[in-house]
């Protein structure tokens, strides 16, 4: 029964995915978006975190904070570069993989993209100014250059989310005799669903970036590096992550408030509602959906209706109400959704515990188990975010524009040869991930060994002959920076860290999850 049925279900999915190019195109989209989104989170949240650290450094004349801000700037240079190129991939793929979508609806969903492009323009400009401006501009002006980045990251995210929200809850056009008419692009840009989706994603970005950066310093503290550098490096991102983690479940709840009307089949899949109950639908944990039935599950009465409908009596519409060709892959959507919610609640509990005990004058940073948990929160937040996206996107199937266009209609006429392209992409993204991690680790190791600046690596053996690492300054990262900012970092007796290693590592782990899908 089970294995064969599972296989049958799987091949059903494949059969529905008719054009030979559809399956690889979806995998390609999932891989590249799942990869981009992690770096995008850093692009959205890192500037604000750097800003706070840098501000503290200047305000309190704190060399440790300044040093952290400077290093984070360099880490973000690497992350933003690959973030930007992976975003470019997406722009191409919208056309390469989904010409049916872009040709038909390009002028419906395009306006948000135009504003997104504008935002990224500004982000890239100020990124260049900030990163290369250390020591070359008056410190206060230089600090101000982070702010536009923090703002444009938000605008860019809002715009992309507006597109995705539109795919899930289409508005701003009519279809008359098969023609798309009455296009209202501003309605696509500004609507309630877009706002809610943005809010949730924005918080997710702060959770991902905040927990990941804090993870790095948690690992450092576990290794016995218990200095101010590590404490500060932990606390600032952790504070950001805390606020986001506390707000996130509420944001998620509001985002889902209209799911029963908006995408009932998706809600049924999330909640594993195989049939419409008589009263309130119970919350289902575990189990598997086979042949129109959920088996081997634990049920908690009422909870599903309460969570998704705010009701003790109304049932969640069951999957039995939908034709089979209108159902999403149920198990996949369900488990992704539950993973997200579960992790969200776990992280909420963890940060609440930390601050509660701190209020009671107990410092959890002294606790090894807490630090160990903190060391994986970056990964957990990424997993929750990826799971949330998978739930959203897979749960939308078989529609690309919900209720309007099915995914096969949007796909290009490419052949199964697209699998080769996909294989190449796996290699490419894998290679970029490995290279990014290698570079970030080596940066952090060199910092720990005492090189305040990293070498400009263009000459030949140069360096072996020239002696130890710390005399090699990168030509464009002159020491004047430290002097001018009033903090001689090299001589400040600062202990050096292993920054940045871990977020790279986390990113990779989460990527491979995205890929493994």
């Amino acid at each position, binding site marked *: 029964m089970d294995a064969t049925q599972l296989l049958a279900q799987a091949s059903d999915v494949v059969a529905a995915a008719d054009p030979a190019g559809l399956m690889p195109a979806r995998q390609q989209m999932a891989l590249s978006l799942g990869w981009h989104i992690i770096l995008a989170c850093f692009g959205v949240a890192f500037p604000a975190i750097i800003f706070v650290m840098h501000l503290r450094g200047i305000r309190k004349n704190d060399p440790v904070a300044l040093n952290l801000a400077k290093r984070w700037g*360099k880490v973000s*240079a*690497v992350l*933003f*570069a*690959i973030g*930007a*190129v992976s975003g*470019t991939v997406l*722009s191409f793929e919208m*056309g*390469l993989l989904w*010409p049916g979508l*872009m*040709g*038909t*609806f*390009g002028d419906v969903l*395009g306006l948000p993209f*135009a*504003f*997104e*492009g*504008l935002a*990224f*323009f*500004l982000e*890239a*400009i100020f*990124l*260049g100014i900030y990163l*290369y401006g250390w*020591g070359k501009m008056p410190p206060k002006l230089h600090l101000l250059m982070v702010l536009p980045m923090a703002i444009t990251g938000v605008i860019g995210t809002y715009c992309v989310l507006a597109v995705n929200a539109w795919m899930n809850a289409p508005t701003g056009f009519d279809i008359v005799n098969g023609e798309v008419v009455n*296009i209202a*692009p501003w309605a696509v840009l500004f609507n309630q669903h877009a706002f809610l989706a943005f809010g949730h994603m924005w918080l997710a970005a702060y959770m991902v970036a905040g927990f990941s950066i804090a993870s790095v310093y948690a690992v450092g503290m576990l290794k016995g590096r218990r200095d101010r550098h590590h404490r500060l490096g932990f606390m600032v991102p952790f504070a950001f992550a805390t606020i986001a983690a506390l707000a996130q479940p509420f944001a998620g709840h509001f985002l889902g408030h209209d799911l029963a009307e908006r995408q009932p089949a998706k809600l049924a899949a999330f909640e594993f509602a195989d049939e419409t109950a008589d009263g309130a639908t119970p919350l289902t944990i575990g189990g598997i959906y086979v042949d129109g039935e959920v088996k081997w599950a634990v049920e908690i009465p009422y909870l599903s209706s309460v969570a998704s409908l705010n009701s003790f009596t109304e049932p969640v519409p069951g999957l039995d109400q939908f034709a089979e060709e209108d159902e999403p892959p149920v198990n996949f959507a369900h488990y992704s959704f539950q993973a997200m919610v579960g992790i969200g609640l776990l992280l909420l509990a963890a940060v609440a515990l930390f601050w509660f005990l701190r209020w009671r004058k107990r410092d959890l940073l002294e606790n090894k188990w807490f630090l160990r948990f903190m060391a994986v929160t970056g990964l957990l937040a990424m997993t929750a975010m990826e799971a949330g996206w998978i739930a959203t996107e897979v749960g939308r199937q078989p529609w690309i524009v919900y209720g309007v266009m099915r995914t096969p209609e949007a796909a*290009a*006429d490419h052949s199964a040869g697209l699998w080769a*392209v996909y294989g190449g992409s796996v290699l*490419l993204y894998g290679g*970029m991930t490995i*290279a990014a991690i*290698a*570079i970030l680790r*080596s940066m952090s190791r060199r910092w720990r060994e005492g090189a305040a600046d990293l*070498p*400009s*690596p*263009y*000459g*030949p053996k140069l*360096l072996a002959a020239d*002696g130890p690492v710390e*005399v*090699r*300054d990168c*030509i*464009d990262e002159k*020491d*004047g920076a430290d002097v*001018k900012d009033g903090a001689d970092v090299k001589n400040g007796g600062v202990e050096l860290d292993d920054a940045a290693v871990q977020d790279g590592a986390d990113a990779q782990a989460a990527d491979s999850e995205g890929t493994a899908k």
Partner: protein
Amino acid sequence: MMSLEFAVAAALFAGVVAYAVFGGADFGSGFHDLTAGGARRGAPLRTLIDHSIGPVWEANHVWLIYVLVMWWTGFPESFAAAMTTLYVPFVFALIGIVLRGASFAFRKYSETLWQAKLFGVVFATSSVLAPFFLGTIVGALASGRVPAGGNGDPWTSWINPTALFTGCISVGTCAFLAATFLTADAARRGETALTAKLRVRSLVVGAATGVVVFAGLIPIEHDAPTFWDGLTGRAAPVMALSALGGIATLVLLWRRRFGPARVTAVAAVAAVMAGWGIGQYPWVLVDQVSISEGAGATATLQGLLVAVGIAAVIVGPALGYLFYLTQSPEWNGEAGGGVKADEGGPIRRPASHWSSRLGG
């Protein structure tokens, strides 16, 4: 006549020209990186390249995003048609763009020479491939090989005389722009030996590119008649302007007037691009879809113009500020070997630093 569609098309095309100039100079520096020679000999040039494009490459690259977005929003069906026909060059260009951006960042922070070499080779090679494939896309569009309904021939659409020539022209103009920019940068930093070397490069690359551009016209007459008519008719003055700009650049380089040479070089390349645009007007897809036929919904086009207006007001000045900073003495101060930093006093440059022993 200034219709709404035309205004959007013009804004879109302005982005193409900006990408050709700014993105082109970025790509072109990869050509010089590739041909800079061995690790020791090439080190000064590579350091200069890193320095020159480091702060600006991400911003320069967003022009491409701008163009794509304007295209799919303003002219959605022709975008889909081009993507389904020209996916091979698009994919190759994309690979080039991804590899070059990533490896440029990686190289900057590499620890060892072999890492830097590895990322450097990837960066440089992909910097040449990407403009070539982008160029073939131009040729394919201009020679009318993208059918309105899409799904044109994936190979002959871009493997044909016009497209291959535009690919080569694209590589050439990028290298030419980059050479003049880098020469001026080197001169401003007082790196005499490097300046001399780059000056020769600029002259050679410039002359070669000029020849290719005008040799490229020969096959176009038969291969792309509509485009040819446009080029030799309406676009003739612009093409003449580009020839003048190119010659003026060579003269200025010869006479070591590197600052003005940048201006004429930009004018020459912008004019070549404008020649393409004017030559193919009023077609979006030559012989297939005109600007007014291909345009999307009116409300959307208006929205796009709003976005463009905001961009002009906000992004324009910001971009100007970035370029201003990168050209300012504070951002260039130290390279001449011991120039004073602004108020911070002399920069500490350890005598053992390798760059102090390289030429200059």
